[in-house]
């Protein structure tokens, strides 16, 4: 049975276009693509499976009778469908992706090749450990690099994303406090400029969140923070370099004060790429910090993930880290510490965060990237990331308001605001016009401490020529905004879609495709 006999109808071109509409809705290489539910059918398949060798059923009474309604496509149709979809995406392979605090850099293809070696890609997490010594070796070797680069004591490898790594750190803190008999410490202090995940994580782990203000300089108000410390404070969650793109100069003093008051320091390590090889967070008194492997050590972001968020831990917190983890024995054999052996070797562990060992595919990519750069190259990574960001900051401060430019150099990201734009124009208009210039826009309206924030992170894999082109485009768009150019309000004009109605999507959520009820409706 075909799912949809009604046929998919292309949409009409935008009003005001001079060109005659095409019959298909396509525009030369810009191709419209229907949904698989509109072009597939439940009796089409692109996979041949050998016929069953036995007719006996052991399914009991539960054999499926109702149709699933899942459409299939042949292989050529499948390849064409997804290739056409891919062409409607912006990607780092196409150009600069200046999303501040998100970090999109070139994805080395060697990483992909190594992650696909059958010895890594085709091994099962529950195989006997003697048959996976190489895979455990990758985890262990990467762990050594992470500990050494951060100057920390241990690392929990299993968190599956940055926010999961934050949770890991906060659970270690909670376990350590309980071991000390201070489970009553419930308050976590989070500066205003923290990532949105930080307060969500602290709350999720059962803590009460209190904000700490930022100074006019865009750094933590150290006096306010110190004044709030006390016997009810469990931890401080701080981001360094922070989301205003600045290094928290007072972090060591903050750490000392927090420790003196009996609390722990969590550092959001999302921005570690700005300081890797130049600063060891352990030297700043950090107790726990997650590292987004996909950011600092590159992994493709795949349109939203997967990520990987190992959490490095201080000597005070390492005993509480989650299972499983690896340990290299004196004879070179790598042991896997899991539930069976934990009682003897790791009695204070807070438990398990995920079913298996974490993001092995990301570990392989990160280790490949790290070995390619080496200790010297990683240091160069931080330097070039910071250099590129400052180049953008200084090249544009004559055109766009740069609220923290007076505070000194920025780190890996530069921040601007929509200050000085005429009534009715704001950051979103600049962002959407940048799309027409062929760029992905910067991060909009974050951090919240800056009005109409534009947060730009070029990363170290951009050339000077690429930056100059981006700077030129942004300068041009900013000038048009300041001049009140009304055409910005309807940008983008050349993208696969014009501005999308996000309010409608939220008010009347359509989250799954449903077959049109009446044939005449389908033709509407």
């Amino acid at each position, binding site marked *: 049975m075909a799912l949809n006999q009604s046929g998919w109808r292309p949409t009409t071109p935008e009003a005001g276009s001079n060109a005659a509409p095409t019959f298909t809705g396509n525009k030369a290489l810009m191709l419209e693509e229907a949904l698989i539910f509109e072009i597939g059918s439940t009796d089409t398949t692109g996979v041949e499976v050998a016929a069953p060798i036995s007719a006996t059923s052991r399914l009991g009474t539960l054999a499926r009778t109702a149709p699933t309604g899942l459409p299939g496509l042949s292989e050529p149709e499948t390849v064409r469908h997804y290739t056409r979809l891919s062409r409607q995406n912006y990607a780092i392979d196409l150009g600069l992706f200046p999303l501040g605090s998100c970090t999109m850099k070139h994805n080395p293809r060697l990483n992909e090749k190594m992650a696909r070696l059958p010895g890594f890609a085709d091994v099962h997490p529950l195989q006997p450990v003697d048959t996976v010594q190489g*895979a455990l070796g990758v985890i262990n070797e990467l762990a050594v690099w992470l500990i050494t680069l951060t100057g920390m004591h241990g690392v929990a490898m299993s968190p599956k994303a940055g926010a999961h790594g934050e949770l890991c750190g906060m659970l270690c803190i909670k376990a350590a406090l309980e071991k000390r008999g201070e489970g009553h410490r419930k308050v976590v202090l989070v500066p205003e400029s923290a990532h949105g995940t930080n307060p969500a994580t602290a709350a999720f782990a059962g803590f009460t969140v209190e904000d700490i203000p930022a100074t006019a300089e865009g750094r933590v108000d150290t006096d306010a923070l110190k004044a709030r410390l006390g016997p009810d404070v469990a931890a401080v969650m701080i981001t360094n370099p922070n989301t205003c793109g600045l290094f928290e100069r007072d972090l060591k003093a903050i750490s000392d004060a927090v420790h003196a008051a009996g609390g722990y320091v969590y550092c959001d390590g999302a921005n570690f790429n700005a*300081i890797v090889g130049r600063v060891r967070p352990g030297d700043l008194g950090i107790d726990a910090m997650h590292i987004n492997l996909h950011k600092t050590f590159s992994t493709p*972001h795949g349109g939203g993930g997967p990520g990987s968020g190992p959490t490095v831990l201080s000597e005070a917190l390492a005993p509480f880290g989650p299972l499983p983890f690896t340990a290299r024995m004196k004879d070179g054999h790598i042991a896997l510490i899991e539930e069976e052996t934990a009682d003897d070797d790791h009695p204070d562990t807070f438990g*398990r965060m995920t079913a298996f060992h974490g993001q092995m595919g990301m570990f392989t990519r990160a280790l490949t990237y790290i070995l390619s750069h080496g200790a010297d190259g990683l240091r160069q990574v931080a330097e070039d990331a910071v250099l590129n960001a400052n180049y953008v900051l200084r090249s544009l401060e004559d055109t766009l308001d740069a609220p923290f430019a007076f505070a000194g150099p920025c780190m890996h990201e530069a921040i601007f605001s929509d200050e000085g734009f005429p009534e009715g124009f704001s950051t979103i208009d600049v962002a959407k016009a940048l799309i027409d210039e062929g760029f992905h826009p910067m991060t909009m309206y974050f951090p919240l401490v800056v009005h109409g924030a534009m947060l730009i992170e070029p990363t170290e894999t951009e050339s000077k020529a690429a930056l100059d082109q981006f700077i030129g485009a942004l300068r041009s768009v900013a000038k048009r905004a300041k001049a009140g150019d009304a055409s910005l309000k309807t940008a983008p004009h050349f993208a696969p879609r014009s501005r999308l109605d996000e309010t409608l999507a*939220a008010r009347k959520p359509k989250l799954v495709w449903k077959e049109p009820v009446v044939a005449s409706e389908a033709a509407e």
Partner: protein
Amino acid sequence: MRYLPLTDHDRRAMLDVIGAGSIDDLFVDVPAAARLAEPIAGLPMHASELSVERHMTKLARQNLSAGEAPFFLGCGAYRHHVPASVDHLIQRGEFLTAYTPYQPEIAQGTLQMLFEFQTQVARLLGTDVANASMYDGSTACWEAIGMARRITKRGRAILSGGLHPHYVSVAKTMAKYTGDALDVSLPTLTAEGDLDALIAKIDGDTSCVVVQYPDILGRIADLTPLADACHAHKALLIAVVTEPVALGAIKSPGEMDADIVVGEGQSLGVGLQFGGPYVGLFGCKDKYVRQMPGRLCGETVDADGRRGFVLTLSTREQHIRREKATSNICTNSGLCALAFSIHMTLLGEAGLRALAAANHAGAVAAAERLAQVPGVSLVNDTFFNEFTLDLGREARPIVRALADKGVLAGVSLGRLYPGEQALENGLVVAVTETTTPEDVEALATALQAALA
């Protein structure tokens, strides 16, 4: 430094624009005591592509991969044949190197794919809606328990003994910090699961019952009476599917009135990968959608009236409501969801049913053959592609001994439940379309020799 495009000439010119004398001037805010003057000692320097490839290949060769051995491991991760076009397509740079679709006008490829994925997952699980993926099955399971707490305002969850023990461990970890009370049991090496016992435990304090389908021993049971019992007490039924291919052969949990259905999507498109990255499936009834964690993609229109897709209902998300968010999840498994979705598109209903039939038939044949090995008995009455053998003696050393002979025999329950003597004789064996009759014969022969 092949990934760093700046030349020293560029760097000098850029420093001049900035007005800095040297790169050190840009790190002036780092306290002197914390500044490292040299590359960190004790670590190797940069290396060529060739030498890195040699190093990694050497590590890869130290593993016995599934393709090199008769292979029977399951328990939450399954080896299936992935059509070549899946990996080819996900490596297109516009998918592989795109970020989270924050700018929908230039991310319609990813967004349409996620909308299609959501619909495919909802149809497969039998739920009204599904989200755009979670980290994996185990964390999706935990998030479902948290969601049941928010919906029912109760904090006592009952977990079936048939639920994967690592999923139980993840739930226990989180419960310690959120205050949920978990009622956890152990499985038994019997043909029957524990549905009747679960029904007897449900009361007015119960937020949810969590049951795996098929369960950790491979058993299949009708969830309808359990769903009815849950609903009679205004509790939710959460069903966990670790092998989605099964749903091509057996009724979906949604058909049996489960309220939330979560799953591990690794079986389709993703591969074993030593445990990750995987892709969590998460579906539920329409009425609970605003309590659902994770990313959602929704259909809308653009300014010209054309159909398009956007991330939506983000008021539930971390970056809007901060400490009031429904979870702290910041990302999903987008690329793995793409692989799942492509594989599912290639299969379609016809292919999925054929694949499921081949898995089941192979498993039935294997179970019958292995039960003939002296000393071995089949625990299950019902199963899909995974079943449990009672070896009559501790299974864990047998698994190790067989691995030494190049046969990856399955997962011993002793590894999953250390110290539980009632379970240590159990061996969970998974059979898929990748398993050949020769593989089964090799396992039977090796098992017979090891048990003799």
